[in-house]
């Protein structure tokens, strides 16, 4: 993974010094609440329901074992012994003291970490495919491009006070695992017919209260022009994005108001001034960045391993975990493994300090000391030999990290919700727990096949409910918590926004509603030979009506 050069380290160290002084001035009353607010936000510090919340950046989700141990140390020393991995591949600590934050940042800086721009109206952490560099369907490794964007976006002097937050995602594979169509900018790194590397540029996607699928504004941008083009997009947005209403301030509103064609024309006009200028990225820089992501020293094991195959044959639980939680690796004999942070009953994405330490150990033993965070809030060991899978599974099981539910209904994406977040209208974690306990029967869950179920505690949509096959949104009605259900959302290349099925439900009914939706699917799905029609395909084929009939046609549910 990328290791800091002296400049990277110096900037992070100077940031710690700067924020320590800002915190001191705030506590001394020299900086007002409103003056301090954007400063602390751009250092990841929110003031939450119970305490401050600190969001630490994990650039494009990559972590070393050493960094993980630091996160565990911070969870133990400054928090209540756990952290929460987020849908932006970051980690949040929910209980630090404001006064301690400069010390936390100083500790993070010793392992090349920080909380820069993890909040506030600025360019946020760039996200990518959790399988970058190892995926069997990868075109080029997206991480050098992510790192280039990380450096460009870090302390960009022109774009520190945008109309609203700004999120960039990069993907470079056949499948899109980075949700690029629901980001302010999505980039697909690809090759043109001549074999040159460039980017397809998507703008104006996003979730929140106005969900929008992004529009492609350029099919191929030569990679040397990437920074000039990003500067052009951001400049158009910074100058012309709305600032009078924070709910209409995201770039998607500007793109929609102008039309994607007109917006693209504005960007191209701005780019015409910048093109070929000093920000052209030289080939030497790409070579330097690519050298940071050279593949580890893979051995050359056979693609299959007799012991592995025997365990898979003999042990049904292991076989199930292999089926759900491993992903095809481009090197024969290896697999990428997802360690599930979705154990039923535990808030999705939460990990204890002990678990984080265990993951660091497992990474060193089995996966070259590196770990990735997925936007689905799980942890990935990307380079595990198939012959090690059984031992890894046993160790991960002991640490409650081996729930075999990746891609299944209990792998719920969920925001912290009303238990923690000051913005939330409703709790989300207890809803996730209720649904997970409803699908405790593993055979049933596996029989249902792939279902993405996403929960957001409010319309800010941190739980990505719009793109869940089943989406659940907490809403406030006359001071009590209700839940709206959507169906048919999807992420990936055929990204779609879910549609609301009807009136909303009380908290204690949501699990029943989900159960009915799933029953309706099981009855309606096509099964041919061994081929089972997946949930999302059935929803697309039969539409919402049969699900509505099942959910609302039975009288016991009270609806709002």
């Amino acid at each position: 993974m990328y290791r800091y050069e002296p400049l990277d380290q110096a900037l992070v160290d100077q940031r710690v010094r700067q924020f320590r002084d800002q915190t001191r001035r705030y506590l001394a009353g020299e900086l007002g609440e409103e003056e301090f607010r954007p400063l602390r936000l751009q250092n990841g510090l929110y003031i939450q329901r119970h305490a401050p919340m600190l969001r630490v950046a994990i650039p494009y989700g990559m972590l070393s074992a050493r960094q993980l141990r630091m996160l565990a140390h911070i969870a133990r020393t400054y928090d209540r012994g756990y952290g929460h991995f987020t849908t932006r591949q970051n980690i949040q600590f929910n209980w630090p003291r404001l006064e301690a934050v400069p010390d936390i940042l100083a500790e993070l800086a010793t392992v090349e970490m920080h909380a820069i721009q993890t909040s506030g109206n600025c360019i946020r952490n760039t996200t990518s495919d959790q399988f970058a560099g190892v995926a069997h369907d990868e075109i080029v490794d997206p991480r050098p491009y992510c790192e280039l964007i990380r450096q460009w976006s870090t302390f960009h002097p022109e774009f520190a006070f945008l109309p609203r937050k700004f999120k960039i995602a990069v993907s470079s594979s056949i499948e899109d695992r980075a949700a690029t169509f629901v980001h302010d900018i999505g980039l697909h790194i690809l090759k043109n017919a001549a074999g040159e590397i460039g980017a397809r540029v998507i703008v104006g996607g996003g979730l929140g209260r106005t969900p929008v699928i992004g529009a492609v504004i350029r099919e191929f941008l030569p990679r040397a022009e990437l920074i000039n083009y990003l500067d052009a997009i951001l400049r158009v947005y910074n100058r012309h994005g709305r600032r009078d209403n924070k709910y209409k301030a995201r770039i998607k509103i500007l793109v929609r108001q102008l039309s994607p064609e007109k917006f693209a024309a504005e960007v191209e006009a701005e780019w015409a001034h910048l093109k070929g200028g000093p920000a052209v990225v030289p080939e030497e820089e790409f070579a330097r960045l690519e050298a940071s992501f050279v593949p580890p020293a893979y051995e050359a094991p056979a693609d299959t391993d007799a012991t592995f195959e025997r365990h898979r044959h003999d042990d049904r639980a292991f076989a199930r975990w292999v089926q759900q939680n491993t992903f095809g690796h481009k090197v024969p004999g290896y697999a990428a493994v997802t360690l599930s942070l979705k154990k039923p009953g535990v808030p999705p994405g939460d990990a204890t300090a002990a678990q984080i330490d265990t993951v660091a150990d497992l990474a060193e033993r089995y996966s070259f000391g590196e770990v990735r965070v997925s936007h689905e809030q799980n942890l990935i060991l990307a380079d595990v030999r198939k012959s090690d899978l059984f031992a890894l599974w046993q160790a991960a099981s002991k640490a409650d990290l081996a729930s075999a539910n990746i891609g299944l209904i209990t792998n719920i994406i969920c925001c912290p919700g009303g238990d923690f977040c000051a913005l939330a209208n409703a709790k989300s974690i207890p809803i996730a727990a209720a649904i997970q306990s409803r699908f405790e029967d593993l055979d049933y869950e596996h029989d249902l096949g792939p279902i993405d179920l996403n929960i957001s505690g409010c319309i800010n949509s941190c739980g990505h409910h719009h793109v869940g096959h089943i989406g659940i949104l907490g809403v406030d009605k006359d001071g009590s918590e209700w839940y709206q259900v959507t169906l048919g959302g999807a992420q990936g290349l055929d990204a779609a926004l879910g549609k609301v099925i009807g009136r909303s439900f009380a908290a204690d009914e949501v699990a029943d509603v989900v159960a009915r939706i799933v029953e309706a699917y099981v009855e309606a799905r096509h099964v041919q030979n061994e081929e089972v029609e997946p949930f999302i395909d059935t929803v697309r084929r039969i539409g919402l009506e049969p699900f509505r009939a099942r959910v609302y046609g039975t009288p016991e549910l009270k609806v709002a």
Partner: protein
Amino acid sequence: MTRRIILDRAIADDLWQLIPAGDAVPAGGKIIVPLAAWLAGHAALSARGGQVGVWLKPDDEPGLLARDVARLPLIAVQFPQFTDGRGYSIARLLRERFGYRGELRAFGDVLRDQIFYMASVGFNAFALKDGKSLEEALSAFEDFFEAYQTSVARPVPYYRRRLGGAPA
């Protein structure tokens, strides 16, 4: 009492009078007039006794001054709230696209903690919000000693400077 500002990283007396939109223009002295007033009558303004500068609101188009940059001694950009970042783009356009070399001043809700970025995008004068310490604000230029990006302060980005060669 003369108002003081930061000019070229030092504390200096402010010799200019800012004329709010709609106010009458005094006969003499150095004045900074709204863009609309400048566009409406710069011949008359240039003919009067003292020097004239222009100030821009965040939604003003800096390109309207493209032909005037060589003769303007001062352009000021208003920050109604420090969280309104449009002025940063205006500054870069004036410096980089239109070649403005005179005094570029930030005024309004201008605070110590934004000065480093403001200086990076080309401001060299800062009329701080009333009541803020200029002495303390001087240290803001030292917040960081380097940056990755292309800016007015560092026209060549770090990834080209590190190669040691001349820019393209």
